């Protein structure tokens, strides 16, 4: 149960010009790039040239991959640095890279390369992984589906969001950040069409840290925020 301070609602502004929110779903396909690295120097070299969508996949695509435990580190590079190279300091630094702050995937690539280079400079030996623990670069292909559902008014989100699939949450809350101006989620982008009526709500949405949450967790957090805002926290 989420507990937020009560939020102030303003009267909705005239919204004739705001298009309904098109609810979509998606299916994420993983593709091997054929690029694998066995040590930290190779990681640096391949990070410089690997496909953009591979960088994306290792930050976000993992949310739709089979996993069970709460991730100790929040991107695949950091996880590999710890699990395969036993480089805790590197894992910690890599895990603090925030892709949401980067306006372009190339900035993200550069940030990663710099962190790896810094670690290589500090190390006397190049850290190696065991043969069966190579890092395999994977890229994603997102197939986007139109559910046919249109959300006419923002308050409908309180009813609809709790029933969205994990993939739908991924598409609107994660994938949106590489499609929308300002790298925001789709809900915030849509609500901004109503001027500052939902500014407080958008602020709540932007405060969610999607890093350590599963998609189910994110759905619950989003549901709680919409319910709180539109229904004063009442269930259903």
């Amino acid at each position: 149960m989420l507990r937020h301070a009560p939020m102030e609602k303003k009267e909705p502004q005239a919204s004739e010009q705001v298009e309904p929110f098109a609810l979509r779903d998606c299916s994420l396909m993983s593709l091997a790039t054929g690029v694998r690295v066995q040590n930290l120097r190779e990681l640096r070299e391949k990070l410089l040239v690997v496909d953009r969508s591979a960088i994306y996949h290792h930050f976000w695509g993992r949310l739709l991959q089979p996993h069970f435990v709460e991730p100790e580190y929040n991107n695949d590079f950091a996880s590999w640095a710890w699990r395969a190279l036993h480089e805790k300091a590197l894992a910690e630094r890599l895990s603090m890279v925030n892709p949401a702050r980067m306006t372009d995937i190339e900035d993200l690539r550069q940030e990663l390369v710099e962190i790896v280079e810094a670690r290589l400079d500090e190390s006397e030996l190049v850290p190696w992984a065991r043969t069966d623990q190579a890092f395999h670069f994977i890229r994603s292909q997102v197939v986007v589906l139109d559910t046919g559902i249109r959300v006419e008014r923002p308050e409908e989100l309180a009813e609809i969001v709790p029933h969205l699939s994990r993939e739908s949450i991924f598409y609107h809350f994660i994938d949106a950040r590489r499609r929308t101006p300002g790298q925001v989620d789709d809900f915030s982008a849509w609500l901004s069409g109503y001027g500052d009526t939902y500014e407080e709500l958008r602020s709540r949405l932007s405060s969610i840290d999607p890093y350590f949450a599963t998609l189910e967790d994110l759905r619950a957090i989003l549901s709680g925020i919409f319910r709180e805002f539109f229904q004063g926290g009442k269930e259903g």
Partner: protein
Amino acid sequence: MSDLLDSYALVAGETEVSHLRQLARRLEGLKVVHVNSTRVGGGVAEILQKMVPLMKALGIEASWEVVTGPPDFYRCTKGFHNALQGMSTGPSEALLQVYEETNAEEAEKLRPFLEDADFVFIHDPQPAALLQHFPQRKGKWIWRCHIDVSRPYRPVWKYLRRFVSSYDASIFSLPDFAQPLPHPQFLVPPSIDPLSEKNMELPEEEVQSVYSRFDLDPHLPLVLQVSRYDRFKDPLGVIAACRLARELTPLQLVLAGGGATDDPEGEAVLQEVRDAAADDPGIRVLVLPSDAHRTINALQRAADIVMQKSTREGFGLTVSEAMWKGKPVIGGDTGGIKLQVVDHFTGFLVRTPEGAALRIRYLLHRRDKLEAMGRRAREFVGRNFLITRHLREYLSLMLGLLTGDQDRIMVA
């Protein structure tokens, strides 16, 4: 046919089935043919038995064809299988010739089905050489590799690569298996069918009946490994592990397997297993017919612990089967088992009989842990390894191949 989809919605969820319908809308009426080398036995046949009807239920014109050949054809393809999984020996020139001749003959037989198909899924190396006989093919051809090819015997991979590289795409179960190839390589793990006789819920009496049927002691913990008699499944390692564990913790072991019609080595391995078990009253070596799905289901449900101590494994459907029944799995730290067994959460990954023995003893002494792992195992399979997810990924990659290699594909 939509009744079939409705029945899956009850297990996999309405959302998953809704995804399937949306994806399939763009693929309705397309002709999709799957080709492998056996209708019974082994994981590929089991998957196709339900994958094809499900595709049909979604309005896709799906069918399943099988290539067959003389005994030397299967000797050759078994040689491929062993070599791709790392054994440093390959089929002789004479066997390779039989392989190519068989594929040429089968190509003529299958021409009416494959030439104008929109998608052809060729499963594993047995029918891989068909492609070269279809220069006028209309559709996209996809090579689906179910084998652990993480460290193949290079001369054999080099030989097969000649055939495989001409495909429009390939599918591997894990990124570790992908190879340098000049086309997109999709990563799709296999799956189990929760509604098949192998995995459906069973009445408790039927589960308990395995004790009398197979002369087992209902008061002793039951450790089970279900798999073909194949050296890569390490049945001798399982026997060794159970004998070690039994020195301190009483238990009984059942090894249950059958043969696939395309595996000529099964008899020899079975004999090795029988020799190792000798007349040990605590070990049962069962040879079950390929349609003994309910029996396997009942054995898995009766078991306390399920093992899959393979030394190489493409995926290991028996792992997900056992996990779906709420059993923790002690598996070899290899291939697709690593994707299913999350070490210490849904079971244990081991590298030696000693490691397996240690985990058997631990789980039998810590029933609370055993049950908690079993619950997590079922949940994990439900989310990741049911056939509906597998089908969704096949439909998605088909759409991807129709649309072109883009990062984002919009389906109206």
